[in-house]
């Protein structure tokens, strides 16, 4: 802080350069300065999400249409003999276009992960905020639940639920939801525990703010960046979990497709059709990697306590 005081009556302020006048997008891009890797990851992620959303307009083939004559065609840029778009990533054991299946499979993988993180994130965050703010027996019960869960791997819980509910996209989502909400609750709780003791909260109470106003108006916006980091990293985690479960045959069921299921189905042809396994795995890896890079970037960039102070 440069000059501290001028006159008794008027304390001068320097107006900052008109940062506010830049448009939102420019300001957003500036956030990436010095971290080009995160920017690339962000763009790749946006492309993958866009392709998943607009799959019907982008996929060159119907992902379910089999063509036994042209089965297990290797990747090729040449147009197939029957005409039409080249099978860039080859065809599978039923002659279906791998690229199209990858695009539609991504749709399923992304929507499972997104649904889980959205619902689990919302439920977990609210529970964690309330539990952390009030403490007491609610918090005690919650902490014991978390302890039990942490001594128990998510995969086994998810498998148990799929076993009793039956496989499929909906039940897989439910199973992952049950596994996934606690980490958000835990995260929100730990953030609130720190924020609860802050002068900011005391000041809000001193002027007479209501509990919801303090919790959702002041605490939540200030702890949102670690929470968003958790959402992004959990999204990656859920994509991996979905792939794992589908690969084992307890997730997405054919004829629907997801990246994990494609690897599971292509596995037996691996010796003569490597492309069935290599591409879905690569795209899982790329998506998860990008989510991790973006998540870490959010953590470093948007922490108000790190940025605000000089």
């Amino acid at each position: 802080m440069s000059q501290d005081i001028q006159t008794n009556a008027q304390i001068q302020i320097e107006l900052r350069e008109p940062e506010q006048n830049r448009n939102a997008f420019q300001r957003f891009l500036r956030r990436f300065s010095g971290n080009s890797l995160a920017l690339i990851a962000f763009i790749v992620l946006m492309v993958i999400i866009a392709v998943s959303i607009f799959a019907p307009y982008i996929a060159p083939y119907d992902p379910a249409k089999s063509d036994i004559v042209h089965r297990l065609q290797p990747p090729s840029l040449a147009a197939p003999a029957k005409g039409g778009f080249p099978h860039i990533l080859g065809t599978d054991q039923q002659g279906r276009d791998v690229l199209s299946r990858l695009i539609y499979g991504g749709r399923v993988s992304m929507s499972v992960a997104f649904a889980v993180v959205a619902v689990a994130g919302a439920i977990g965050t609210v529970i964690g905020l309330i539990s952390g703010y009030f403490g007491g027996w609610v918090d005690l019960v919650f902490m014991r639940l978390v302890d039990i869960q942490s001594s128990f791997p998510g995969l086994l819980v998810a498998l148990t639920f799929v076993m009793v509910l039956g496989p499929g996209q909906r039940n897989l989502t439910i199973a992952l939801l049950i596994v996934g909400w606690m980490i958000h609750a835990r995260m929100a709780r730990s953030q609130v525990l720190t924020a609860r003791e802050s002068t900011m909260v005391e000041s809000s109470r001193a002027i007479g703010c209501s509990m919801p106003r303090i919790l959702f108006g002041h605490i939540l916006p200030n702890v949102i960046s670690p929470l968003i980091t958790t959402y992004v990293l959990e999204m990656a985690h859920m994509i991996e979990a979905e792939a794992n479960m589908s690969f084992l045959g307890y997730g997405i069921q054919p004829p629907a497709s997801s990246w994990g299921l494609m690897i599971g189905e292509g596995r037996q042809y691996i010796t003569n059709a490597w492309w069935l396994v290599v591409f879905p795995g690569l795209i899982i890896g790329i998506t998860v990697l990008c989510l991790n890079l973006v998540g870490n970037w959010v953590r470093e960039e948007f922490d108000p306590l790190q940025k605000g102070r000089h």
Partner: protein
Amino acid sequence: MKRYILMRLLYTVVVILGVSILVFVITHVIGNPVNTMLPLQATDAERAALKHQLGLDKPLMVQLSEFLGGMFRLDFGKSWWQQVPALGIVLHKIPATLQLVATALVIAVVVAIPLGIIAAYKPGTLLDRILTTTSLIGICLPPFWVGLMFVLFFAVKLGWFYTSGYGTIRHLILPALTLSVVPMGHLAQIVRFSMAEQLNAQYSITARAKGASDFAVLFAHALKNAATSIVTMGGMDLGRLLAGETAAVEVVFGWPGFGTLIVDTIGRQDFPLLQAEVFLVAVIICFINLAVDISYGYFDPRIRY
């Protein structure tokens, strides 16, 4: 210390009981294994008979108390699928997985710790950046896919190892290598991070200033202080792997271990077997956590129980 361990053990019992009851209630309230066990055309009488035979027609509280009574004698009942005591099957499968996980962790530690230290020693260099990026990529790739890639390259293309099976070292290397990738990434990152932190700490600077060699600063001071976070991470990975996360990789390599057993159990809706597995997983994880906690006291003399 004794008191602390005793309290922890007591707590462990509570956690194991809680988890077991939770799984029991979930499976018995929502689940309906009879439909999977009988063919589609089975009559209602046949279904009812099987239900009676499995004891599923009794009130839930009776079933639960019978289950808990058995659990205290470590008797989870006979596996519905194999008709032998469930715990025996599980214990029989553990050594294969233990062998795999132990090998994987040894590989991970041997590779990751030196690399992490090198990266921390010269932070910001090209080598450091390559190592941190590679370890992140390693964590992000699905292990079962990595396993398939290893099969494709080392087994199919080069023919060095068997694609699947169990018994010799040529069977063991590929699945162990596959499973080591994620812990390797985790460990490399945590070693790199905490060592860099320790090397920047005041005491390291003091040690250097008084003329200690780089080697002494790295190994005598920084590594010991970074050890708690390394052990925590290693313990978490060990717990995860022993608790069934090996399933997909075991399936890829046809490894007859605990993971494969879990996958089969789920497919066959074998409740007693599942309960035995859940019990064992909870025990393993609780004891790993306890061991990790106790090790803190060794690495960090400030911690007393």
